């Protein structure tokens, strides 16, 4: 069950990665750092909320709100940095997101210090339930539900809304979409912000269950990366299935043979890349 919880969080971050990669063809190494940023801002928001006398039971509200609002950092990053390298080689795009990783990590250290931060006690505020013979914190179920809802929401957004169609058209063929009058700058800015917001929300939601550490971002990116490789680059279904695979495998490995936990995941990543580089649902050929 802890595996599914982890998978739900991973899905959010990986979905952010996928949206950006699918449309802009940028592999955003900084998505883990956005996740960390969301976590820290989420903690601060909750602490402020509790400090202001808010009922602990409603902490989810400021948490989720903070997570979504930090996503607006995406606009700044996209307009301020990324838009200069769209016509460049992808190496430079990758390096620019690596620059973001470096900057954000220290920005977090400067703002919140190096000591781990946590929202002590709130994790179990919703109590626990017994499910299939195991005791599960209700909060986990809330996050899993939220993640499923978001997955459904993204699916609806991409297939049913006008902007979703534009996004898919852009992902398919940028030149053609542009020729048909799509404002690329606006699409890119919105897509990048959406991707960022998914990451920061993931960070905010994970926080009641764990402590925020400045390294959490660079550790998560490689897991999110494993998710998208297994599921297929640029595919939403891929992010969903990949997150489940990684989340569950991790949980199983931890209980059976902890040393193998991450090793197993990377070995699967390599296996997938070698045998089927486009992943389970990927449509992009090498």
């Amino acid at each position, binding site marked *: 069950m802890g595996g599914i919880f982890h998978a739900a969080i991973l899905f959010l971050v990986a979905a952010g990665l996928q949206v950006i990669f699918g449309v802009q063809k940028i592999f955003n190494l900084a998505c883990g750092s956005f996740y960390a940023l969301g976590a820290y801002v989420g903690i601060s928001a909750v602490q402020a909320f509790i400090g202001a006398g808010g009922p602990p039971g409603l902490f989810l509200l400021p948490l989720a709100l903070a997570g979504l609002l930090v996503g607006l950092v995406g606009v700044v990053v996209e307009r301020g940095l990324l838009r200069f390298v769209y016509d460049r080689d992808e190496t430079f795009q990758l390096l620019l997101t690596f620059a973001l990783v470096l900057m954000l990590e220290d920005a977090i250290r400067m703002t919140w210090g190096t000591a781990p931060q946590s929202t002590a006690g709130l994790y179990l505020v919703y109590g626990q339930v017994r499910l299939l013979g195991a005791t599960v914190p209700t909060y986990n179920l809330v996050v899993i539900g939220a993640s499923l809802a978001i997955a459904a929401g993204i699916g609806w957004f991409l297939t049913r809304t006008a902007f979703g169609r534009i996004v898919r058209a852009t992902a398919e063929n940028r030149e053609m979409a542009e020729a048909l009058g799509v404002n690329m700058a606006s699409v890119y800015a919105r897509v990048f912000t959406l991707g960022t917001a998914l990451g920061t929300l993931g960070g905010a939601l994970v926080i009641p269950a764990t402590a925020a550490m400045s390294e959490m971002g*660079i550790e998560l990116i490689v897991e999110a990366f494993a998710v998208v490789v297994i599921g297929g680059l640029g595919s939403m279904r891929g992010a969903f299935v990949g997150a489940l695979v990684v989340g569950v495998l991790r949980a199983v490995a931890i209980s059976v043979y902890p040393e193998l936990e991450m090793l197993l995941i990377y070995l699967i990543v390599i296996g997938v890349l070698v045998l089927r580089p486009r992943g389970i649902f990927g449509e992009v050929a090498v």
Partner: protein
Amino acid sequence: MTGRLVLGAVTAGVLVLPLVAPTYQLTLMLPFMAYAVILLGLNLLFGYTGLVSFGHALFIGIGAYTGAVLTTHTRVRSLEVILLTAAVAAAAVAAPVGALCVRYVKIYFGMLTLAFGMVFYTFLLKFYGITGGDEGMRVLRPWLLGQDLGEMPKVAYLVGPYYYYSAAVLALATFGMWRIVRSPFGLCLRTIRDNPVKAESLGIGVVRYRWYAFTISAVYAAVGGALLGPPTGNVDPTLAYWTHSGNIVFMTLLGGFAHFFGPVLGAFVFIYLQDTVMSVVPYWRLVFGAILAFLVICAPGGLMGLFTRRRHPTPGAARA
């Protein structure tokens, strides 16, 4: 001609530096020389073949841990044997890993190398009994050219014999790489970078040549990695972490991947700038991230690009 003059001046400078420079500056030269060796190799992939590895720290780790394992678990102390073993170990790992990786280019190559790097990192971290886990392993002071210098004070050892030894290794590595990139093989690599389809039609075994380049650059990384260990006396898994791979790509870009000596300059500037920034504020990553972002957006040719006016090809400019 000016190139030779500069090279001669730099060589002379490196040789007389221990006589004039303060000890602290000299200890900074040690990681610089190790990274310079690593980057010479990385640039064979990055600048000359157009492949960006985000897992090269794997081979740095192999080199560094070779030194640690040999000195602590066996009686081997000779640095020559360590460097040679590191090179062989790296080649042995790089041959199969590279064979898989070079079948892909661009983002897939980057991801695959990153995944292999993380496999090794996880191994170093989790198999505590063999590798010492996150505490790492000690590297005992190696003998140089058969001389056991164990009686020497540590600093005197490092800025004296070890300094010259590293400089000699770097000189050899530079000479070797210079011959490689000037050879028909190096020319093939550049052809592959600029246009793999054309290269293939010219009869160049594109995948095979990429594989050679990958293996050679892995050997360089391991030799450089083995040089990194003794000055600190300790190696730990962060040497193999993916951000370390990112950092060395950064150094290459900083100096300028389009120039043979660009990465060496990049390593030099990176080490000294990092030291300077860290002495002022603890947040060197923030400063370096900003520098990297600036480089990527405004000066992709790196520092060398500022000196030379030629139009430079981009890495991986060739679209498969």
